[in-house]
Structures are given as structure tokens and as C-alpha cells.
């Protein structure tokens, strides 16, 4: 027994010894080390970003659930700086900021410092109105014939980069951003967004198309074969030459995937003032109904609707809280048509005084762009707090003219008021 045990022990010992040596024999599945492969993946994206000396024109949809998209022009440089402009708002100057290509799950484009364009879309959706919930980090998804697709995993956003085609990025990108902001020179002099155009196919109306510049959402409506009213919001963006549908869609049975492409590009024809599909010249968006700017419609008394629109005070109305009622009178300054004067109506509580705590509060109107701003900065609301960072806009196309402003009211959260003409 003792001998047998020793023999078996020796055999087992030898086997274990050789086995332990054997596991150290590794098989190389890749020709390159992991760090080299990671670097290669990053270099692939770096090379693509640097491949366009005059940059890219990109469309950015910050959130999958929202149809609003933004045109952002960006030019990537070797020194990890990126030049950028956009149509996000009226500030279209080219900025220079930092970017890098990092590695997370895959190669990622990261905008590392504030660029005053894409960064504006990176705001907490719960932090106040107008927040877009965008991101700074985009995973490289694909390169399809020079169109680079990057995805934001957190918000399901999508950033698509196309070669800009510019000869001079600095001048042409700004010009492009300027006109996309007001729907472009192809739409110059029109108020494209407010009213529907008919969509024609082979001379027949197959639906209606509208675009709201405030929400940046395009809508297609049509009556289907069974008589049902179909209304669909679609992702669309304005280009230097017209408009482009971002996702494949269909207009009353006419698919936007034509000739093998998923994009339906409409080019504006200046002579006929029509948008004509590149892939089907019989598919036309036409019949714009203009919304004329009627200054006389602005003067008058306005109801005041107001409340906090975020945080724990969301829904709270100052009027209810203070037991007050508000109404304002609005009229153009007879001496200066660019000044709109807002006064608290007699018999009502004090709702608005200007940033210098005097009245009237003056809304400055840019007669070229029809944009509004506060002459004396954020106003004081209900003699309570100043409205900081306040936006100001108006709607002159609806039946009832209205003015809307929102901003941060002291430390109490985001607050919005709407003046609606009586």
C-alpha cells in the first residue's frame, strides 16, 4: 500500500508540474496589444475628425424623445481645439474650445470646455424651462460615406457630422448659422414656421407641412385612405439650400426613402418659392401662408398668466401667494417704434417694473429680426424679486398676440409669465 501510494504520488506530482507549465502558454488572438488596439480605435475617429480641413456641418438631436434638432458647424484642429458656431440662438460668433478623443466603451468625442454653442444644450432638464438635456460625450458609431454618426448614450441623443463643403469655415459657417436661425436666406422675408404649406405630389395635395421655429419641430399632417387624420412630428433641419428630413418617414404613403437614400432633401427654388424634393421633382412643398407683422395689433390690455415652472415651487403663482391680481397695458412708444412700453394697468397690483425699478418696462424690438429683449435687464416681478437670465419672445401670428418671458426668480426657481391680449 505504501509503495503504491508513493508511485501514484510521483505520477500525480509530475502531471501537476507539467500542467502548471502548460497554462502559461498563451495564444495571441490579436497582432497588437490591447493598448495599441485602443489607440488605433481612437486614431480612427481622430483621423476622421481631422479629415475635413474646413470642418463639418452637423445636426444634433439632444434627446431621442424630442424632435428638435440644431445645426452646429465645427472644425476640429490638430491641437485639440475645435472651432464652432451654431443656429442655437442669435450668438453665432465662432468660438474656440477644447475637445479630445477618449476611450470609454469605444472611441468617444468629448467636448471638454464650454464652447458657447453645443454647451448651451447641456442643461439639466429639471433645472428650468428650455433645458435640452444634451451631453458632452459622444460615442463613435459609424462612418457612412463621410457622414460620421456619434451617439450620446445618456440621453439617446445623436450627433451627425457631414463635410461642410465650405471654402472658408470661419466666414461661411457664421453666415450659415445666421440664416438657419431665421430659417435661412432661402426663406428670407417669410415667416416660414407659423403656418402650413401644402405638400403636392404630381399636382395633387397629399398633406400639409408646418415648422415651428420656437420648438424646432416639423409636423406633417394628412388624411389617410380610410379618412383618418394623421399628424406626425418629424425630425427635420434647415440647410443652406433648403430643408432635409432626418429620419425616413412617409407623407401619406409617399416614402421619404427614395432611390436608396433615407434622407429626403428639399431644395428651395427661389423663382417659384417652392421646396422641391431632390429625388422627385413632382414632390413639392408650396403655398406658404405668411403671417404679416401688424404693429397695430400689439397695442392694448393684456391678461397676465404667471407661475414657477420648475423645482419645488413649480406651479406656484405669485398672484395667488400674495393675494394679488395683475393686468398690464402694452403699447408702442410713439417716438420710437423699436420700444414697446409695458405698464401695470390701473386698478391692478404691480406686476412688472424694469431692471432699474422704474416704469414703464421697455421691451426692445429688433426690427430686422423681430427679436425682443429687456431694455434695462431682467425686470422685477411683483415687487418681489428680479427675473435674471430672462428670455423674452412674442407670438404675433396667433389670433391673440402674446408675450412670454422666463428666467430665474431669485433663488426660488424658474418662473414664467405670459401676457395675452384681451
Amino acid at each position: 500500500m505504501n509503495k503504491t501510494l508513493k508511485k501514484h504520488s510521483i505520477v500525480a506530482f509530475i502531471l501537476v508540474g507539467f500542467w502548471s507549465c502548460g497554462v502559461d502558454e498563451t495564444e495571441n488572438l490579436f497582432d497588437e496589444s490591447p493598448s495599441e488596439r485602443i489607440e488605433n480605435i481612437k486614431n480612427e475617429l481622430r483621423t476622421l475628425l481631422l479629415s475635413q480641413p474646413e470642418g463639418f456641418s452637423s445636426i444634433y438631436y439632444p434627446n431621442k424623445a424630442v424632435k428638435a434638432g440644431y445645426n452646429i458647424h465645427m472644425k476640429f484642429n490638430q491641437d485639440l481645439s475645435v472651432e464652432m458656431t451654431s443656429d442655437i440662438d442669435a450668438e453665432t460668433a465662432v468660438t474656440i474650445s477644447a475637445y479630445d478623443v477618449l476611450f470609454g466603451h469605444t472611441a468617444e468625442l468629448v467636448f471638454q470646455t464650454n464652447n458657447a454653442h453645443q454647451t448651451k444644450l447641456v442643461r439639466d432638464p429639471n433645472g428650468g424651462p428650455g433645458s435640452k438635456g444634451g451631453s458632452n460625450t459622444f460615442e463613435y458609431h459609424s462612418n457612412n460615406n463621410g457622414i460620421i454618426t456619434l451617439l450620446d448614450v445618456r440621453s439617446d441623443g445623436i450627433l451627425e457630422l457631414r463635410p461642410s463643403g465650405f471654402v472658408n469655415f470661419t466666414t461661411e459657417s457664421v453666415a450659415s448659422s445666421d440664416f438657419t436661425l431665421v430659417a435661412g436666406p432661402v426663406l428670407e422675408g417669410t415667416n416660414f414656421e407659423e403656418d402650413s404649406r401644402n405638400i403636392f405630389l404630381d399636382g395633387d395635395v397629399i398633406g400639409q407641412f408646418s415648422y415651428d421655429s420656437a420648438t424646432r419641430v416639423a409636423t406633417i399632417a394628412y388624411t389617410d385612405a380610410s379618412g383618418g387624420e394623421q399628424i406626425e412630428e418629424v425630425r427635420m433641419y434647415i440647410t443652406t439650400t433648403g430643408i432635409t428630413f432626418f429620419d425616413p418617414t412617409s407623407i401619406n404613403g409617399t416614402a421619404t426613402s427614395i432611390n436608396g437614400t433615407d434622407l429626403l432633401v428639399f431644395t428651395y427654388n427661389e423663382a417659384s418659392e417652392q421646396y422641391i424634393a431632390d429625388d422627385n421633382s413632382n414632390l413639392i412643398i408650396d403655398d406658404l401662408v405668411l403671417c404679416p407683422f401688424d404693429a397695430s395689433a400689439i397695442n392694448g390690455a393684456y391678461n397676465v398668466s404667471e407661475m414657477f415652472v420648475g423645482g419645488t415651487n413649480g406651479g406656484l403663482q405669485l398672484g395667488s401667494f400674495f393675494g394679488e391680481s395683475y393686468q398690464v397695458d402694452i403699447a408702442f412708444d410713439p417716438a420710437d417704434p423699436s420700444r414697446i412700453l409695458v405698464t401695470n394697468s390701473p386698478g391692478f397690483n404691480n406686476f412688472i417694473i424694469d431692471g432699474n425699478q422704474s416704469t414703464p418696462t421697455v421691451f426692445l424690438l429688433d426690427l430686422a429680426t423681430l427679436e425682443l429683449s429687456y431694455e434695462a435687464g431682467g425686470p422685477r416681478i411683483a415687487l418681489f424679486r428680479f427675473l435674471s437670465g430672462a428670455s423674452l419672445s412674442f407670438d404675433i401670428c396667433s389670433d391673440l398676440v402674446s408675450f412670454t418671458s422666463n428666467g430665474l426668480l431669485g433663488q426660488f426657481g424658474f418662473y414664467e409669465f405670459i401676457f395675452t391680449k384681451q
Partner: protein
Amino acid sequence: MKIKNIFKLTVALILPLMFFSCDRNTDSLTESQISIEPPIRSMLDIWLLDNFVKPYNIDIRYKFNESDNDVARFLHGPFESNVRPFAELLQKVWIEPYNAVGGENFIANIAPREFVFSGGFNWNPGNPTITLGFAEAGARITLFNLDFIDFTILDFDNNLISYVNPIKTVQHEYGHILNQNVRVDINYGLITKNGYTGQWFDFSLDVARSLGFITRYARNNENDDFVEMVSEMLIRPRADYDAIINDIPSIDAQALLRQKEAMVVEYYITNFNIDFYALQELTSQAVIDLQQ
């Protein structure tokens, strides 16, 4: 030959063979895969390297990196033009005063090894507050809102864009760093032990002070209470601080705050050999000097 000897001989012959057979794989150790390529540095990066990394071993991280932040927060890097002014702010209101009073290597010896600069507001989900900054494990201080700060506004109250805010945040967070090196006397938390609440933001400053707290946030817990005392004293001259205390209607509350103040002063002199009032004189003057 006995079986025992055969066994010994067999083992003696096989063992070297086994080691030899294993030895053939030693060549598999190849060059390091870690890249030693120097990063691309801007002029700003070089300035930060010379003024923070080399003298203090402190890295100022201003370039957005997802792993530096809570992915659920919507944050972004600051404008590059705002980075150096804030780095200089750190030098003037924090590094230079502490080194002057605590010794030339005080900050080099006890400091967070990283500052993270963030450009936007860090909104707290579920309540109407924002986080101004935080300290992590004695190693990192993160500051938010840098792109919204106005160096012309010297306001000690609730003005979100006053440049006093980040200074107060730094003094607050560095207080935590010091506390993570040397604990505060546990008796400090007993002075107003019944006043602490996680719902501190539901109560006014007057209520907080009437209970013996220097700020609303000081009611969060005894750790924040201590560093709120530190920061509130360091951002303003002693006379201004005394005026705040003396204006509190409750004599009892005044006494509680004076008791806390004494423990702060004692903590600094005992553990760091720092005359707190001398430090206060330097830091508060730096705050005033920074106004543009």
C-alpha cells in the same frame, strides 16, 4: 537500492526539469504598454503645471471628463478663459494666506490633490437647491458654476453670481479636508445637537441663527456646521463677522456661536499651529482685493 531512495532520486531529477520547462516562458514579458507620449498641452496647461502641479502637487482639472462627475448631472467644462482667473483666485484666497500663517509648505503638505472646475450649475434633483462644490476623500475638491461668476459682484448673501461664492466653497471644502486629516472634537457636535436636519433648506437664515447656526446649511450636520463656521469667518473681516453675531437677537444663540468660534480657533492652533484670526485677516483682505 531501497524504494525510499528511488523515490528521493526520482523527485530530485524531475524537479529541475520542471523548473527548466517553466523557464522557457520568461521571454513572454514584453515592453510596457503604457504610453509615455507627453500630452498636448496648451499655454494654460503649462501655466497650471508650473503654478500648481510642480509647487503643490495639485492638478487643476478643467477639461470635462465623464468619469469626474455624476453621469446623472448635466454638467460641462468651463470656458477656458475662466480657468486661470479661478486658479489665481485659489492662489490668493487660499494658498498664500494658509502658507503665510501655517508655514510655506502647509498647502503642499495638506491639500486636495485635484481641483475639478465645472462650468455649469449642478442642480440637485428633487429640491430647489444647487451644489456649489464638494470635497471627496480629502483628495479632490470640485467647484461648479464657474461660467456664471462675476468678479465685480462682492456679495456675501444669496447672489448666485457673486465671486464670493466659490471662495466660500473653497474655504468650506478645505475645512473638510483638514477635518479628514485631524478630526474635530466630538463635543463640537453637542453644542447645538438638536438643531441638525437634512431639511435645512426649508428654514430661513434667521431661524438658523436663532438656533445657534451661522448659516442655513450649517444645520445639515456637525461636519458642515464646523466648516460653515470656518468659511463664514474666513471670507469676511473679523469686525464684520462680529457684527453678524452681535446682530442676532437671541443672546443664547450668540453664546452658542461664540462657543463654536472658540472651538474652531482652538482646533486650528492646537492641530496646525495656525492663528485663525491672523489667517482670517489675510483671507478676508484677499477677498476684497479680488473685486474688479
